[in-house]
């Protein structure tokens, strides 16, 4: 047995946990190295001193303080916490309602603080009232803002103007096809 092996077995020797053969080997080393006994005594003294350390006890108000903490934890956990599927603490429905309200608020604020945008809209509305040009109602090149009144017409629409009729006669140009 060497010094390192001896030191490794000191605790087991002191606590009587060595096997018979190991104990014999240990004691043989002690006989051959009497100075090693002082190490055993030193370790034994350290163990005894640690066991005799004054016991530290908890504060007398330990239980009281603990119960207060438990009670406050229970009260805290009883308050409903927002679930994971929330947006800044709001459920999706509430979040959408709030978003809609915010958009409406912004829109109304714009209407109040920027009134020019309102007149432009009314002009657009005027333009929108005019008829959209179509094949049956070909549009005019210029916008005629005045609506014609038949009572004010200078000409009688029943009078046929041959020149105008000639201009409008496309019979020579049109060829009718038999089905």
């Amino acid at each position, binding site marked *: 047995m060497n010094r390192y092996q001896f030191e490794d077995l000191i605790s087991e020797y002191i606590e009587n946990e060595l096997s018979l053969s190991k104990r014999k080997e240990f004691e043989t080393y002690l006989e051959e190295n009497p100075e090693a006994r002082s190490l055993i005594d030193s370790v034994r003294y350290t163990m005894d001193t640690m066991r005799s*350390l004054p016991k530290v006890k908890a504060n007398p108000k330990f239980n009281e303080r603990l119960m207060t903490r438990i009670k406050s934890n229970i009260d805290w956990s009883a308050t409903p916490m927002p679930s994971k599927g929330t947006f800044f603490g709001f459920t999706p429905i509430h979040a959408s309602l709030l978003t809609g309200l915010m958009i409406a608020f912004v829109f109304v604020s714009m209407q109040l603080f920027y009134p020019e945008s309102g007149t432009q809209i009314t002009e657009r509305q005027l333009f929108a009232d005019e008829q959209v040009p179509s094949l049956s109602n070909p549009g005019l090149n210029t916008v005629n803002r005045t609506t014609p009144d038949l009572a004010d017409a200078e000409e009688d629409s029943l009078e046929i103007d041959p020149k105008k009729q000639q201009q409008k006669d496309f019979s020579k140009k049109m060829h009718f096809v038999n089905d």
Partner: protein
Amino acid sequence: MSLGKQQSPFVYTDEQLIARFQSGDERAYVELVNRYRDRLTHFVFQFLGEIEQAEDVVQDTMLKLYEKKHYYREIAKFSTWIYTIARNLANTELRKRKRRKTTHLSQMTRDERQYEIPAVQPDVGQDVQNEFVAKRIQAAIQDLPEHFKTVIILRDIQELSYDDISNIVGVPLGTVKSRINRARLQLQAELKDLR
């Protein structure tokens, strides 16, 4: 053994008490607190070196016991379970302390400490001497590496069995015995002048 209402809680084992607490009997919880409050305070104090922090850690341990009672399974002893919780919380506190880089007297090395060494004379009270020795041992324990400190406190101060210690720290029995032995050798070297 029947668990009648008339029986004193002192006849119940720790495992029976935790089972009753899991069923909703809060008196069982109070009894467990009373049984382990001082033991754990002493253990954590030796680990951290400060009584106020030790009490806070033990409070947190008991709070965890209250909130996580259903985590306990009768596979292991109740004492193993609660010591494990206390040890983990004490370790966390120790790591926080290291991050804060706060120097405490108990953490100072031998060269930095300045002790008012009382004269060892016949007229000096034994209490003062004992207090001095206790403080020297506590300081020496604080100087140990963490994995040595835990096992030596559990064995030589808390007087737990090697099996219990092995379960608490989660290392094999042989490793526990080896660490305890080396911790003792280191402590005796540091406390040679006390003899």
